[in-house]
């Protein structure tokens, strides 16, 4: 049976919460327009926009209930939902703290109005949410019947989960996790076991991330890479062995043996799976030999809890950034650089960085922070012949320097960020915004503030932005 969940950014949640609980103990209302993500096991609603109902204008004394949204307010927003292919959710609050449910009056009003709303919004789904201070209940109306909301996830620096009532979570007390459970508890361990994490790129950075999160006890790992191991990777890819590169065969002058060597070489994702299984035999590990830029692959990532970007192409950055903002999935981009002056050969500023990207304004959007080169993006769409015709100077055989210890710096920072984010361990007031860049040659760190462009087509709130649209917008992948 499918689970029904709701994801909302912390910024939108705080806006809503402040409106619903201003301290007057009274009832207040709002509407959320949401995108949707449907996968085999889950239907996830994605809060794209929160519209607060103004007291006395949009939210007035009801004829049958205590309060109601006005017909004009409902009509305007349900039409918008229909036109923009979004799901319409009414929101109000009750008293109480850790548990909440709909009153009979609420349920009766749904029965009166929602069949028509379902039609107006072209089959929705539509629904209602009722909040207590630390709880939320939801009723979802679909063409296939009425469903109940399982949980709401508030995506911020710390992931916060809300339920209709406090859930009973069986902790995990396995001996292998004993030392880390002393930090975040058996319930935290259980939360890791239930999480699904995507790793884009299983090379020097991704292989470290994969082993670390497997050892942490993450239950479901999806690793994506189309590449096979080569001898120049072995110094950086965790668990790789020189013999499985078959470089001696690939070095053969006989084309057939060369082809055989290429065919026999192990895929990087298969190495990552082997290492992960050694660390945690219970892990569900999907080793995907493919590219995040392909639609079939990206569909496996839509219900992830977290995404690590460990690949360097601009296209993978664009898809990652779209996934974070379109599907409200937190993520982190990892990199290190050893820039070398091509004229003098001298090494310039070496750095390692892990850039968190949260689906909200100033959340680290790669577009807003100019970390996606539009020129390189266009280059990546060209064939080799087209690149030559356009007389590009860049030699594809030139590789940038890459060192395992620098990769480890960024990877460890990123995995710690995931751990703290997923289990709510960050100090909300002290944890600094932005991302930390390790300036290795200077033996120091710096915090880089995140920029935001309000017109951004990924994280912005304009009509053209893909923010929170989920399946109702297309991803930037080729056909």
């Amino acid at each position, binding site marked *: 049976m499918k689970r029904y969940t709701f994801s909302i950014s912390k910024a939108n949640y705080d806006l809503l919460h402040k409106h619903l609980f201003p301290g007057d103990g009274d009832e207040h209302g709002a509407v959320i327009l949401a995108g949707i993500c449907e996968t085999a096991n889950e239907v996830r609603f994605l809060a794209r926009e929160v519209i607060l109902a103004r007291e006395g204008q949009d939210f007035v004394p009801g004829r049958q209930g205590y309060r109601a949204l006005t017909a004009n307010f409902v009509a305007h927003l349900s039409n918008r939902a229909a036109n923009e292919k979004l799901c319409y959710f009414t929101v109000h609050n009750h008293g109480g703290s850790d548990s909440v449910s709909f009153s009979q009056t609420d349920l009766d009003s749904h029965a009166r109005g929602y069949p028509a709303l379902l039609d107006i919004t072209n089959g929705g789904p539509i629904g209602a949410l009722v909040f207590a201070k630390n709880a939320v209940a939801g009723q979802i109306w679909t063409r296939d019947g009425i469903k109940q909301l399982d949980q709401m996830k508030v995506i911020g620096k710390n992931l916060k989960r809300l339920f209709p009532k406090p859930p009973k979570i069986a902790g995990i007390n396995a001996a292998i996790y004993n030392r880390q459970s002393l930090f975040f508890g058996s319930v935290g361990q259980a939360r890791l076991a239930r999480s699904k994490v995507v790793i884009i790129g299983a090379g020097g950075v991704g292989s470290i991330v994969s082993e670390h999160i497997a050892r942490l006890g993450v239950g479901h790992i999806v690793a994506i890479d189309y590449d096979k191991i080569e001898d120049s990777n072995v110094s950086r890819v965790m668990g790789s062995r020189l013999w499985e590169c078959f470089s001696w065969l690939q070095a053969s002058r006989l084309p057939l043996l060369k082809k055989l060597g290429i065919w026999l070489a192990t895929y990087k994702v298969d190495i990552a799976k082997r290492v992960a299984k050694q660390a945690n035999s219970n892990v569900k590990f999907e080793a995907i030999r493919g590219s995040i830029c392909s639609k079939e692959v990206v569909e496996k990532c839509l219900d992830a809890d977290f995404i690590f970007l460990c690949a360097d192409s601009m*296209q993978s950055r*664009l898809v990652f950034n779209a996934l974070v903002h379109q599907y409200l999935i937190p993520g982190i981009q990892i990199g290190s650089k050893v820039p070398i002056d091509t004229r003098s050969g001298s090494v310039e500023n070496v750095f390692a960085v892990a850039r968190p990207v949260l689906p909200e304004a100033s959340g680290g959007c790669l*577009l807003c922070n100019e970390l*996606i080169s*539009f*020129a390189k*993006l*266009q280059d990546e*769409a060209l*064939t080799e*012949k*087209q690149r030559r*015709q*356009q*007389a590009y100077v860049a030699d594809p055989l030139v590789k940038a320097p890459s060192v395992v210890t620098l990769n480890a710096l960024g990877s460890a920072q990123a995995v710690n960020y995931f751990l703290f984010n997923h289990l709510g361990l960050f100090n909300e007031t002290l944890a600094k915004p932005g991302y930390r860049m390790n300036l290795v040659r200077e033996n120091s760190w710096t915090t880089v503030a995140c920029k935001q*462009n309000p*017109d*951004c*087509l990924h994280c*912005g709130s*304009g009509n*053209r932005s893909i923010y929170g649209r989920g399946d109702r917008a*297309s991803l*930037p*992948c*080729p*056909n």
Partner: protein
Amino acid sequence: MSPEIKPEVASAIDEIRRAYPSSEVEVTPDPDGGAYVKVSNLHIGSQFNPATSWCLFRITFQYPFADVYPHYFVDGLQKVSGEPQPQGIHVGNPCDVNGVNHPATMVSRRSNRLNPATDTAALKLQKVLDWIRTQ
């Protein structure tokens, strides 16, 4: 069956049609969801021979996040005065459309500060035309 053009690319093409109502706009989809677009009957300046040309360019599937360049004009474009070609204009540089070479003159004008929210393929075409008309 021809590959499907992505909605963002289709919108860009519609905007080009609206911006150049007296030109024929031919569209050839590429395999990824982008398209090659050829806009005919564009005045590029009497300093050139010919003074009117078509313009062919590719809008890749990543649009609006990828730049639209280079732009291709009729092959053998020459200055009437006999002066050498200005920098950025490459005669005899064919355009590869889905693996087939089309003789052309390439004009390469990369956008250095592309803003996907506002910079459209139609706007880029106009900027390239404005530039070539001043050469």
